[in-house]
């Protein structure tokens, strides 16, 4: 027998799934920009394809990134994906071997134990196939029980919150949960009646089902198994499980160099559909800890993007801190998508700042120092930085000393492209007018904006990098007074610019760095809550995020909290914790071994200028 009506739900579901996904894939690829299509054509037959295949195996099947974050969660995802994949693969091999290479209908391997009770043609291989099929079924069932525990008591697996799902996801999830227990039941009945089982299915058949096994129940179990598969396949394209086919497409396109653009594109659609709503970003998001419930987190934001439109609150309550993006195992460019989503309303125009006049005769210097708006709110940071520059005889000019003009990043983060670009131009003139060879800013927000979006033609450094450089080239020396320092990574510096080690290296010259899991020197640092990318949160909400962050990084041994961002400094200082928060420049100034007295007027003289030499690294950047 090679056919029975019970295979219909499965076959119909599978056919629907394949046709539907192919149509969607073709549509997505068709709507990619011409540039992206070219990338696709160019790279299709290159090593990138091999790399993509490898990545699909490592991520979509083995879920390596999730493993790294949480072993239980990794095992859960891996066992379901890889286990199921192996069941399909071995099942196909088994039925192919059985029919001596003849092509079988797609349902045949899935329901093999229903159609074939006499396994003799498999000869010796019977035991191997039987064993591995049962083994992977067991693995999948183990993963399933973990998934069940995660839903019921997520804390056991080290997860604070799981995603709240919508109805279509619940239907798909329920059918998925039923598939494998039903398979075990159906194969158990086969084992009980026809002795087709291996260790697991025989156990099921002989020990549990032997009393009740009857041909009617047996057939019903196979029907139920097929129906569960059918429902899952039909709901898949409309539920979170669409991520399974989409993630594969995403991995290939990303390997070919396709990226998010300045506006939404067809690629955005692919990214949005690749979100599995796994909820890993929910625990990562600082908003989650706020008492007010909100659906700001990316799992919900992307879901709204997919089915409808994110609400104002979902769109604007986000801090753009990038913690979700860092945590996301699929690697979706969430922050870009969010920024683009905010571009819908242009509230400011490029003419908005016509009242600003570009400075004409700016003071000249080799190093331009830009404090930025936030810098101007923390004059202590400016003073300390400039004092260090003076001590090292740096020929600098403080370009935004007279009133700050915003670098444009807050406008850009709020989707105000036209206005942001006009501010960029004004500051660019300001910087280039100074004739500087290097630009240094004490604000990570400005620094990132300069590096990523201003085309200046001169190297840009964050002040922590530059002070470290001065220390390394022996222009400054520090006394280590064993102060116990906890360092808070600013989002824009750590996740934004990957400047993580430099501030630490510098602080180690002044004191002893204290570690906690939350400031481990990786990209997972917490957000201070101050972010200018957000206009929606109230002062109290921001304060409560700052409190959480401080409790996360503080240990009772610490004397000072160091940070490298004027905004972080301000935000953290709002909390009720009784600890001093200082900028890295202030700490370094404390620890500075005072140089021999240098008369004020020689600091900027040309004689001193010639003494200014940089390490080979910086020199190479300058000469580039």
């Amino acid at each position, binding site marked *: 027998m090679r056919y029975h009506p019970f295979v219909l739900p499965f076959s119909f579901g599978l056919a629907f799934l394949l046709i539907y996904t192919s149509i969607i894939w073709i549509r997505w690829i068709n709507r990619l920009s011409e540039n992206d299509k070219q990338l696709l054509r160019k790279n299709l037959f290159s090593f990138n394809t091999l790399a993509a295949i490898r990545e699909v195996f490592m991520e979509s099947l083995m879920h390596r990134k999730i493993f790294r974050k949480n072993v239980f969660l990794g095992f859960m995802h891996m066992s379901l994906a890889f286990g199921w994949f192996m069941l399909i693969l071995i099942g196909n091999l088994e039925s192919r071997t059985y029919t001596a290479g003849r092509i079988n209908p797609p349902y045949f391997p899935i329901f093999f134990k229903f159609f074939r009770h006499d396994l003799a043609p498999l000869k010796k291989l019977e035991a191997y196939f039987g064993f591995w099929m049962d083994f992977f079924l067991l693995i999948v069932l183990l993963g399933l029980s973990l998934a069940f525990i995660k839903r019921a008591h997520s804390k056991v697996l080290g997860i604070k919150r799981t995603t709240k799902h919508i109805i279509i996801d619940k239907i798909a999830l329920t059918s998925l949960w039923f598939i494998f227990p039903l398979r075990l039941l159906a194969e158990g009945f086969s084992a009980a009646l026809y002795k087709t089982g291996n260790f697991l299915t025989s156990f099921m058949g002989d020990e549990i089902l032997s009393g009740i096994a009857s041909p009617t129940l047996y057939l019903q179990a196979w029907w139920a198994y097929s129906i569960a598969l059918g429902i899952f396949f039909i709901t898949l394209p409309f539920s979170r499980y669409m991520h399974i086919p989409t993630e594969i497409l995403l991995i290939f396109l990303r390997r070919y160099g396709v990226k998010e653009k300045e506006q939404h594109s067809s690629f955005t659609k692919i990214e949005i559909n690749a979100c599995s709503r796994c909820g890993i970003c929910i625990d990562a998001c600082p908003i989650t800890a706020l008492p007010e419930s909100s659906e700001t987190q990316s799992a919900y934001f992307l879901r709204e993007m997919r089915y409808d439109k994110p609400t104002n609150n979902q769109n604007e309550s986000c801090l753009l801190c990038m913690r979700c993006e860092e945590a996301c195992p699929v690697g979706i460019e969430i922050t870009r998508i969010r920024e683009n989503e905010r571009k819908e*309303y*242009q*509230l*400011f*125009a490029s003419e*908005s*700042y016509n*009242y*600003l*006049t570009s400075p004409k005769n700016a003071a000249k210097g080799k190093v331009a120092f830009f404090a930025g*708006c*936030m810098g*101007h*709110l923390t004059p202590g940071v400016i003073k300390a930085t400039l004092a260090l520059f003076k001590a090292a005889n740096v020929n600098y000019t403080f370009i935004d000393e*007279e*009133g*700050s*003009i*915003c670098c*444009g990043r*807050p*406008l850009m983060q*709020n989707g*105000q492209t036209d*206005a942001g670009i006009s*501010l960029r131009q004004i500051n660019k003139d300001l910087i280039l007018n100074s004739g500087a060879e290097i630009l240094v800013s004490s604000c990570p927000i400005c620094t990132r904006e300069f590096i990523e979006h201003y085309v200046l033609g001169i190297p840009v450094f964050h002040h922590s990098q530059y002070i470290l450089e001065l220390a390394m080239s022996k222009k400054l020396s520090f006394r280590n007074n064993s102060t116990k320092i906890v360092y808070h990574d600013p989002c824009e510096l750590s996740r934004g610019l990957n400047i993580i080690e430099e501030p630490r290296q510098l602080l180690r010259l002044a004191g002893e760095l204290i570690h906690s899991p939350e400031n481990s020197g990786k990209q997972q640092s917490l957000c201070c809550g*101050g972010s*200018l990318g957000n*206009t*929606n*949160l*109230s*002062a*109290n909400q921001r304060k409560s995020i700052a409190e959480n962050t401080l409790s996360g990084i503080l240990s009772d041994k610490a004397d000072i909290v160091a940070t490298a961002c004027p*905004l972080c400094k*301000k935000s953290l200082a709002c909390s009720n914790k009784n600890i001093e928060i200082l900028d890295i420049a202030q700490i370094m100034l404390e620890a500075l071994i005072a140089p021999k007295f240098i008369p004020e007027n020689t600091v900027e003289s040309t004689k001193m200028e010639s003494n200014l030499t940089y390490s080979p690294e910086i020199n190479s950047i300058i000469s580039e």
Partner: protein
Amino acid sequence: MKDFGFSPMKNKVLNFDELNHDFHQWIAIQDSSFNLCIACGTCASTCSAGSYTHFSFRELCKDIRWGNAEKAMKESEKCMLCGKCSIACPRNINTRNIIKMVRKAAKTSPL
């Protein structure tokens, strides 16, 4: 106008009957922190746009309260969303959110 024997300067006269008081109401509903402003001027002294123009959040607040909706909407465009005012404000007013609301109103006239 009634003759009191003295009169205010012409350019300082506001005719309350002609002004737009709904706008104040609307803003206060959009962001409840609006009414907390005590016009202390901290925001004005730090405002980035304020070092080049007469604009500041305090001015904006005053215009909205007096019913000068038109002027508020026009002036609000000068803000750079730099965020200094919201950090400086002793009353924890969500200034940038309010400025965005005023801008939205200017673009979409919701009233």
